[in-house]
């Protein structure tokens, strides 16, 4: 995993390694209520984490908006259908 770095931010409120892990789990919607509450509380006191979270969140949203939404070519759809129909006899 990541190496543990000494916390270098001036606020001193942030254990970097633990914060990063927490941030990721919350960002990806996989934190339970308790962890979410803990992270929310931490964000109030830790500017670096607050900034990081907002940037990460914006990138995640942007990825979803800009990099999905591709439609499968119609000819491929038809080809798969007919191949399966041929197999399924």
């Amino acid at each position, binding site marked *: 995993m990541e190496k543990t770095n000494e916390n270098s931010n001036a606020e001193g409120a942030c254990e970097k390694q633990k914060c990063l892990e927490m941030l990721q789990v919350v960002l990806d919607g996989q934190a339970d209520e308790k962890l979410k509450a803990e992270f929310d509380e931490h964000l109030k006191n830790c500017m670096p984490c607050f*900034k990081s979270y907002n*940037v990460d969140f914006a*990138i995640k949203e942007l*990825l979803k908006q*800009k990099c999905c939404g591709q439609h499968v070519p119609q000819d491929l*759809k038809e080809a*798969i259908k007919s191949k399966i129909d041929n*197999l399924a006899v």
Partner: protein
Amino acid sequence: MSEAAKKKYSLDEKNRIFKSEFFPHLDSMYNFAFRLTFDEDDAKDLVQDTYLKAFRFIDSFEQGTNAKAWLFRILKNSFINDFRKKSKAPTKIDYQEVETYYNSDDIDEPITPDLRVDSLQDMIGDEISNALNALDVDFRTVIILCDLEGFKYDEMAKILDIPIGTVRSRLHRARNLLKEMLSGYAKKMGY
């Protein structure tokens, strides 16, 4: 193969599973395949292979489990086995920094303090898409699975055959690389 050994589904059931559980993921599968291969024909072949395999091995699919994750796993394995060697490299773009970061020890260091939300939002789609495409395939894959497709860490671990801890650290590295590239772009554009 033990295909004949455990025939779980009737032909009708197979067709029904295929139509109701596999087919709805075609767009996602194609998007994944295209972002792995960067080539329309390769992506089509990969998706078609995957669906044919899925049908052939449908008896090993458990109804009620995540069909999308199952399909993504097949596609990923097909890509590694059949396509990875011959797939075309991404078109060279402006992100020369990528290579240096791969070789750098402090890959986890920066949280790119200069990257701001408002500058991100001003970026048009191509930059983020190009940045994603410029990532090494292992990093690209975790971003696709997590951020584009919304898979959970444990599902990603199964799709990729790696431990959850590796999923998480790879995701973390991938995001840092992405931020570095976007930050470089933002700087160039004068944000």
